[in-house]
């Protein structure tokens, strides 16, 4: 691509941006729940990275002689019906959760942003086709669409990512289309047309950076929602396959012993909730920090 017109502002923007960044952090960490959320997510990432160092036991090794033990100094959260250490499985489950979360969100967000940008910027038939396709996907509840896709593709982490990705694309597309439509009305976009810039260039260099902000907030909350959806699929036994350590399948396996060993199902379920809650809080914090007008409204 030829770089004839460099219309972007030169480096002078750098100076005020420091205070901008400070203001952003100040608003972000204003609410205690956001601080809590960031803390939880940092812990989650660290646990996932250092899982082999934190877990004292092999999360997949059965030990029938020590099944269904209560919490002790050896097994902090006890053992499950196959004698596997619950704490170790919980630690490895963090990896699964993050893998599915980031995988799905990356897949859906990239696809959704491209489709939304095209629909909003080009309008007309492109818009009609893309948006009707999104309406179609939105007609299915997320879990039902995921069930349909997993039934076709089969279980397993990759297929769960594809299924949940397809199910969540409409959210990004609609949001991106909406912001693109409003950004398109700006005079600097008209200026681009006036100097004869190609549509693609205008879209990528000018509309995209100006319309992407709300997507960042959506990505954060969707990370939580997707982890919750994966847990639901695994809970039903059609997400991550059995020996794999996923919080949803742990909760479902523990359900059989709920009356006698409540911790087996409560521990993974609480872990899911904590993570989903944290992502939501951070998402809200980001929304406030990125767009002060919205604060306290939703």
């Amino acid at each position, binding site marked *: 691509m030829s770089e004839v017109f460099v219309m972007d502002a030169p480096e002078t923007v750098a100076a005020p941006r420091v205070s901008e960044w400070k203001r952003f952090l100040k608003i972000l960490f204003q609410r205690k729940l956001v601080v809590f959320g960031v803390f939880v997510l940092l812990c989650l990432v660290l646990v996932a990275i250092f899982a082999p160092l934190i877990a004292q036991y092999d999360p997949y090794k059965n030990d029938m002689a020590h099944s269904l033990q209560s919490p002790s100094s050896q097994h902090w959260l006890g053992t499950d019906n196959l004698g596997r250490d619950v704490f170790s499985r919980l630690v490895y489950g963090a990896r699964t959760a993050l893998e599915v979360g980031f995988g799905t969100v990356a897949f859906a967000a990239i696809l959704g942003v491209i489709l939304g940008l095209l629909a909003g910027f080009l309008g007309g038939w492109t818009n009609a086709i893309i948006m*009707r*396709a999104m*309406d*179609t*996907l939105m*007609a*299915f*509840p*997320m*879990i*039902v*669409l995921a*069930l*349909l*896709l*997993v*039934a*076709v593709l089969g279980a397993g982490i990759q297929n769960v990512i594809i299924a949940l990705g397809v199910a969540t694309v409409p959210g990004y597309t609609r949001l991106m289309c909406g912001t693109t439509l409003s950004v398109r009305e700006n005079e600097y976009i008209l200026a681009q047309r006036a100097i004869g810039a190609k549509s693609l260039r205008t879209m990528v260099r000018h509309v995209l950076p100006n319309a992407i902000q709300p997507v960042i907030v959506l990505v954060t909350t969707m990370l*939580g929602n997707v982890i*919750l959806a994966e*847990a*639901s699929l695994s*809970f*039903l*036994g*059609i997400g991550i396959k059995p020996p794999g350590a996923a919080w*949803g399948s742990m*909760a*479902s396996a523990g*359900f059989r012993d*709920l*009356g006698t060993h*409540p911790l087996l*199902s*409560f521990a993974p*379920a*609480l872990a*899911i*909730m904590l993570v*989903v*809650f944290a992502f*939501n*809080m951070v998402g809200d914090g980001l929304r406030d920090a990125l767009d002060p007008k919205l604060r306290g*409204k*939703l």
Partner: protein
Amino acid sequence: MVTYIIRRILMGILVLILVSLVVFFALRLLPGDPALIYVSGQSGGQGVTEERLQEVRKEFGLDKPIPVQYWNWVKGVVTGDLGTSIRYQQDVGKLFAQRFPVTLILGFFSVIVSTILGIFFGLVAAIRRGGWIDTLVTFLSYIGLTIPVFLLAFVLIYVLGFKLHWLPIVGWTPPWKDFGMSVKQSIMPVICLATIPLAVTARQMRSSVLEVNNMDYIRTAWSKGLRERVIVTRHILKNSLIPVVTMVGIGVGIIFGGAVIEETIFGIAGVGQLLATSVFARDYVVIQGGALVIATIIVVVNIIVDISYGGLDPRIRYE
């Protein structure tokens, strides 16, 4: 208004056609041969011969070109023929006819509970903005939005079932068979289903009331010296309900999604449980039919919601 309704209905029909295409092609994209799946499902893996496969292909019209197959399938669907379940060897329409009432009854009560309570809590929180009720409602709605349905079910089953022995933990009886039992067995499932839509509605209602509160006519009402009760019920409530109407459409979707998990946990023979177990049994015909019926219900509900929204708020129609 008439053009608005017609346009909305036409768009809904278009989406329904697209939904049917998605569902149809999801099945065609299967790596396996549907005839093979059917024959081996029917005979437990035995008797899979080429002649039998050809027979089945002919019987189900699988030897015809894809567009013809789609057309025949749609013709069947419109007349209520959703195919034959691979697992149950039964008409899928009949399977649904047995199970849909269960899901719909529980879903109906969940929508009622979540809508009424959501409107109430959202209203109270917004009117007492910044007070302890507001803080509590906002916090609880966050919890409601993030709690996994199964965690909620675990807590309820553990406390109300195992520890207090107040409620039965499994199964569901229709109200016309044993009313008392039915009510007891419905409490926990309805709480599980209603929680998320309740949180969504409360949040929507809260922000909607805050929006209306800023309007000139509310200030006028205050300056006229009206009592707070009159202002809240006559002016604020009525006007802030309009956006909340759309939540009903979203709520129906949430409830069908939640039913899959809730019915599996409580052992309720509804559509949700049927779908979840059908994935195991690789009973594609049932999943296909279920996804189609549920999506159709949601599209229709949303058409109704949008039309009544246009009726309630004249500003929408002219967009």
